[in-house]
């Protein structure tokens, strides 16, 4: 009976144990069983002795170096210095592990990138570039609710899908908010908009069949204060689909 080489034995003992041939051998070989147990004892001892909760130091690796380590593009000239630091710094090792895990995570990898739809010629001329910038800025950063990702696309969505309205304005710092504006949700025949403070207190609510609504003058929005708003579209009877929360602030005078 030939015992497996160290490589498959380590992969079996410390990995996922999925190698059926090694598993069958170990089940009948006392010597390999002893090897597996010893490997696991030392490995568990090391795992238990590690702590990533150390304060960063000036020697800690920056994000670019961490990324270079993960991508395997670190130049040989820096390899020893970086490996030596990593061997001594649990915090940076933890960052390497987390970054590597994110970079090969299908949820993350599959989420990139969103094609930016713009007319290349538009960027070449000032006025058109400004217009494109306004549109992109309007789409801008999407706020999230409930942890569900949603694409911001600049084209009319398919009528067969349930697509949330997109909050367009106001966002960021504004001087006043005479009305709020959003994109149309396919099939929606009514919208309800709500402005609230960041702690959840409702400041104003309104309903309309249009994709914008005027804010009554009686609604007092305080300068320097941030607010969040969103709009919900009724796409079917009693079925509402909401935009993401969007933040704006009344700029101080």
């Amino acid at each position, binding site marked *: 009976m030939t015992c497996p080489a*160290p490589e498959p034995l380590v992969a079996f003992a410390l990995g*996922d144990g999925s190698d059926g041939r090694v598993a069958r051998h170990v089940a009948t070989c006392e010597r390999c069983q002893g090897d597996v147990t010893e490997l696991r004892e030392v490995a568990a001892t090391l795992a238990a002795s*590690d702590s990533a909760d150390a304060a960063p130091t000036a020697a800690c690796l920056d*994000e670019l170096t961490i990324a270079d380590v*993960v991508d395997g593009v670190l130049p040989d000239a820096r390899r020893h210095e970086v490996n030596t630091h990593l061997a001594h710094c649990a915090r940076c090792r933890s960052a390497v592990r987390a970054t590597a895990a994110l*970079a090969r995570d299908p949820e*993350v990898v599959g989420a990139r990138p969103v094609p930016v739809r713009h007319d290349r010629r538009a960027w070449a001329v000032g006025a058109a570039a400004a217009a494109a910038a306004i549109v992109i800025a309007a789409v801008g*950063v999407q*706020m999230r609710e409930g942890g569900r990702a949603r694409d911001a696309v600049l084209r009319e969505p398919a009528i067969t899908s349930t697509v949330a309205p997109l909050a367009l304005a106001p966002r960021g710092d504004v001087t006043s908010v005479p009305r709020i504006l959003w994109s149309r949700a396919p099939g929606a025949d009514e919208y309800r908009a709500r402005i609230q403070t960041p702690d959840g207190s409702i400041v104003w609510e309104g309903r309309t069949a249009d994709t914008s609504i005027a804010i009554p003058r009686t609604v007092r929005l305080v300068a320097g204060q941030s607010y969040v708003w969103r709009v919900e579209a009724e796409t079917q009877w009693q079925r509402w689909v909401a935009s993401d929360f969007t933040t704006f602030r009344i700029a101080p005078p």
Partner: protein
Amino acid sequence: MAFLTAGDRDAAWDALITHYRRLIFAAIRRTTSDADHVMDVFAAVCETLRADDCRRLRDYAARARPGSKFSTWLCAVVHNRAIDCLREREGRPRPSAAAGRMPPLQRHIYERVFLQQRSHVEAYELLRSDTFPTLAFGSFLAALRDVYRAVGRETPLATPFATRDESIPETLSGLEPHAGPSLDPSVAAEREAVLTEAMASLPVDDRLAVQLYVVEGMPATDVARAVGLSGAKAVYNRVYRALAALRERLQRAGVGAGDL
């Protein structure tokens, strides 16, 4: 990174965020599931990237090497900011709170190792024999590491709660703690020192391969790329040699790995 040379930095910034925001959100949600916290981290990431007229982005553009991926760098930035935000929000994790939030596998490991005072390998075999019949040792190691990190490594090796700590719950899921033999803290410290010294005796690359593969639980191919080895086989080989050397050194010092 052509956007950095664009005249309209604001428009370019919006384009960048539109392009990568799904990746950023997906990466953040791997760190926290709290919807409010996701937004906080997203804001922090944006703030970090925009600071000093997009200094970090310009730095990336200037220093990026051929073959490096912008998305990997972005993941590193997101991870760092997420960790910073978590610390700002919750401070250092308290053992009692950490134990209460553990996922099922970690809670079972906590019970076996910390409350029942089982050895690590014994705890693994017990978990496989009842609750987790298909549990791979690699997954056990990763969860074990997280348990120790969660409780903050306040306690000595192998007899974690030998010294009673009021902040640590006496029971978890109704289990009474086992009144196991206490280990003298000075003996535990000495054993930890032996382990540290044994690790320090390894060549740097071997040591790092062990740390990334065994302790961090990274796949062998990722470890090979990170350490600069030829492939997974080289990682397994180094790990085998290194663990054998560690065990020998520990035994010479009169410490069996099972004692640790």
